[in-house]
């Protein structure tokens, strides 16, 4: 019996981990499609390497920092290099490693089309080895300090998505915008669009991410015999769908036409939004959470891009950072399961308060460390490619390739 249960858990977690792994393809496609053809090879290399180098760092250090024996609830101190032979540890490492890679890869889109490849490699080593694992320790290690005070983030709206989102924000800020993105006309800075080159790849990427998200959320039960697997999948589906619908109508209302790429972002916002509370909310709540996320993701661009002039080519900060915050707060509002009751289910503001503490702590930790990290890289190897390489494209400049050899592509920007 116990054996069979273990076996069931094993195949469920490994299946789920495989699905989460596949999200790497989704991120690669979304980021490639939303940027220009001349940088496609570079985006691909970044995504491939934040996974490949990242997973090796997570094997050496990350897992130990995250799940090793806790020091004051702050970081782990043993199990480096995945020591030991317990089959459960391997299984769990696998599941956690693909989560770490997800956090790392979120950044590549925000810093796309202008970052030195070398600089990105350095960044990716540190987020996988230290920044993400510490955040994860606080929230998911049984002795983590945020866990102890009752912070809830079931599948990682904050741990994974906001962590990625805030690192992305720091990267995009310190890099500065792509050339041609903000133009000064009569003393006033206007944001210009630098359209992505391949919408079908973006769409495919979003579908792959959605597919992978079933593993992401339902796999976070960490058990194949958890009866919540069903409802988690349901709320994940509904929230993503609601995000698509409201994002579409928001763009329709604001810009006159239903905009495909923002609608696709709406799906992701809805999925990020439901991630923290997917085990605790009802289908109706999921529809609300997704709907709000879909609207927020469109509106936040008005601030981040048009007001703050932070150039985030794929909108990673909105999709992961801001929706991550919303999803984490939403636990405090809509949770309704077991002992956890959100504001709307008679639980008062207590849980929401705890959620806010968690959100702010992670924001400070990630922004702080990422700021230092990117600043150090800037001061040493440099963050940005030179103008010539940026104009000609990073594919030629950094990798000596053309992503679409033979195709006539009109590149003047």
């Amino acid at each position: 019996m116990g054996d069979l249960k273990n076996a069931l858990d094993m195949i469920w977690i490994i299946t789920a981990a495989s699905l989460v792994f596949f999200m790497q393809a989704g991120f690669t496609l979304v980021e490639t499609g939303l940027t220009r053809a001349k940088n496609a090879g570079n985006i691909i290399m970044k995504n491939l390497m934040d996974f490949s180098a990242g997973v090796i760092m997570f094997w050496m250090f990350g897992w130990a920092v995250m799940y090793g024996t806790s020091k004051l609830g702050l970081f782990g101190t043993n199990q480096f290099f995945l020591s030991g032979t317990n089959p459960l540890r391997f299984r769990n490492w696998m599941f956690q490693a693909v989560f770490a890679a997800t956090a790392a890869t979120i950044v590549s889109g925000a810093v796309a089309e202008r970052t030195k490849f070398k600089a990105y490699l350095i960044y990716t080593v540190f987020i996988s080895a230290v920044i993400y694992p510490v955040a994860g320790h606080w929230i998911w290690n049984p002795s983590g300090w945020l866990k102890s005070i009752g912070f809830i983030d079931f599948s990682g709206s904050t741990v994974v998505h906001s962590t990625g989102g805030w690192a992305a924000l720091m990267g995009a800020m310190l890099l500065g915008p792509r050339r041609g993105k903000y133009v000064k006309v009569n003393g006033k800075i206007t944001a210009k669009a630098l359209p992505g080159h391949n919408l079908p790849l973006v769409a495919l990427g979003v579908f792959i991410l959605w597919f992978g998200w079933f593993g992401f959320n339902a796999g976070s039960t960490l058990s194949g015999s958890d009866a919540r697997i069903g409802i988690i999948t349901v709320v994940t589906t509904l929230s993503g769908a609601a995000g698509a619908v409201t994002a579409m109508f928001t763009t329709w209302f604001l810009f006159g036409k239903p905009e495909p790429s923002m609608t696709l972002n709406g799906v992701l916002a809805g999925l990020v939004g439901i991630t923290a509370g997917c085990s605790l909310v009802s289908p109706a709540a999921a529809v609300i959470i997704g709907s709000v996320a879909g609207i927020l993701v469109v509106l936040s661009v008005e601030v981040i891009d048009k007001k703050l002039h932070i150039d985030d080519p794929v909108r990673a900060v909105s999709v992961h950072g801001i929706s991550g915050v919303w999803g984490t707060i939403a636990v405090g509002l809509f949770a309704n399961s077991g002992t956890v009751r959100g504001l709307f289910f008679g639980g008062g503001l207590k849980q929401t308060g705890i959620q806010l503490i968690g959100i702010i702590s992670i924001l400070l930790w990630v922004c702080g460390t990422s700021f230092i990290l990117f600043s150090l890289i800037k001061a040493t190897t440099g963050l940005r490619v030179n103008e010539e390489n940026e104009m000609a494209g990073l594919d030629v400049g950094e990798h000596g390739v053309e992503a679409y050899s033979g195709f006539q592509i009109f590149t003047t920007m």
Partner: protein
Amino acid sequence: MKLITVYIQPYKLNKVKQELFKEKIYKVSVTNALGCGQQKGFTESYRGIDIEVNLLKKIRIEIAVNEAFVEPTVQAIIAGSRTGNIGDGKIFITPIEECIRIRSGETGRKAIG
């Protein structure tokens, strides 16, 4: 011999080809181009950000003909592409001094058709 260079709306190409065929002008070369003219382009919004599209898709046609064919060719092009709206396009006529058929080495009027 004249070289007739034409810019038209893309979706008029088939019509223009048909009109040319009626006049027994079978040899044309086509490239796609972007044009900026009276038709000022339009402002779109991409992901909520304005984007000015002031280079519109056009088709560029080159037709080399003997003098006698210039007028029919021009008429055929107009017949095939005029809508009366801005953006219909332009025809430019330039002189050709020599024309050579690579296959046979023929030159001049014999080579052009």
